[in-house]
């Protein structure tokens, strides 16, 4: 996290204009100018919109660049998509008057996805884009976009191949937006997602090889909701090891949750959600933790 850059951009935005328009005085703002130009050249776009930091930013900039008649944000919904994320997507779309459409996806019915191989994300994204791209074409949109950013390119992201195969474009990655810049620009625009922890699909809580089922996904979702309800803030993952939940929390909160009475409350919350055994990871939250567990490096 480039805190220095982040702070600098925020201050510029706050000091210069309450409505916050991009300026050429910071790298992130300059990139945003390029993004607006790039979007305008596409003429009309569909944005794969999860309600997360990246796709929300992209959709809102597209709305500004093209207007509501030429932008459609589309959310693919299934059991692997957290309800809270859906609520955030809906609320943001409503607040920003973002044209929004939901489509049902059925990746859990694909045995190649449900077996949870290390390239599981490919089958999920294949399902999403296979529905979304033809729909966009049928409605006359010129391009389909996703929120992949430049930092993502270093990660293990087999889903990116599915996007490429379907001709989906990733302007944030193309123009070199890193996550910290997207957060800074999101804040400057007043987007509620700017500080939102990343929230990948619920299947990412299951170790590779553990079959993805609706019941497992629901239990993970209930467990994370239970932890939020007792005050867990910031990054959080409940990793499902069968009857054992391994909880990853923001590292700076670990000492609090290891001490009583917080530890007892945490264990009871997870046991009520369906995990008889509860463990706290001593390193805390790690993005791609289960990739590390499986010995997978970034690609």
């Amino acid at each position, binding site marked *: 996290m480039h805190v220095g850059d982040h702070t600098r951009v925020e201050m510029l935005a706050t000091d210069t204009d309450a409505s916050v328009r991009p300026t050429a005085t910071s790298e992130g703002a300059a990139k945003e100018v390029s993004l607006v130009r790039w979007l305008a050249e596409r003429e009309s776009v569909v944005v794969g919109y999860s309600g997360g930091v990246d796709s929300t930013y992209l959709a809102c900039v597209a709305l500004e660049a093209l207007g509501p008649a030429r932008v459609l944000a589309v959310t693919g919904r299934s059991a692997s998509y957290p309800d809270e994320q859906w609520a955030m997507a809906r609320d943001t779309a409503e607040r920003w008057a973002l044209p929004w459409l939901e489509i049902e996806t059925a990746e859990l019915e694909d045995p190649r996805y449900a077996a949870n191989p290390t390239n599981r994300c490919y089958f999920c994204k294949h399902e999403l884009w296979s529905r979304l791209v033809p729909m966009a074409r049928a409605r006359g949109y010129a391009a389909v976009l996703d929120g992949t950013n430049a930092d993502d390119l270093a990660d293990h992201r087999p889903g990116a191949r599915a996007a490429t195969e379907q001709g989906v474009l990733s302007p944030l990655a193309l123009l070199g937006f890193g996550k910290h810049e997207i957060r800074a620009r999101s804040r400057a625009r007043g987007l509620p997602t700017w500080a939102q922890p990343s929230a990948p699909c619920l299947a990412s809580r299951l*170790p*590779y*090889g553990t079959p993805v089922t609706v019941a497992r996904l629901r239990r993970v979702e209930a467990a994370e909701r239970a932890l939020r309800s007792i005050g867990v803030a910031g990054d959080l993952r409940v990793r499902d*090891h*069968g009857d*054992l939940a*391994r*909880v990853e929390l923001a590292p700076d909160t*670990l*000492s609090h949750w*290891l*001490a*009583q009475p917080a*530890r007892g409350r*945490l*264990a*009871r919350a*997870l*046991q009520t959600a369906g*995990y*008889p*055994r*509860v*463990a*706290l*990871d*001593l*390193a805390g939250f790690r993005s791609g*933790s289960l990739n*590390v*567990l*499986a*010995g997978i490096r970034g690609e």
Partner: protein
Amino acid sequence: MSSPGFVVSDAPVADPVTAGLGAGASETRAVSLAGALAQVGIPCRIDVHGAAAFLLAADDALAVRLADHALRRDVLALGRRHGFTHVAVIVGDR
């Protein structure tokens, strides 16, 4: 850097174990890690799921001690030295 009387290195003693690790090798590493922890005053049982080690103590004391950041760091380093990519402490078991 380390807790008093508990000096470990970040250097791995072997390549990190992977999901393909056999049960026998996994058990051997768990026993080895349990022995190393006992030597530094942390007696516990270890359950293994892939390359993750789960520490289970007979009483509340281990979790209390692990609220200390420096001790957590040292336990993690010891886990890495024995080939575990993740180390967690069991805080609820019924």
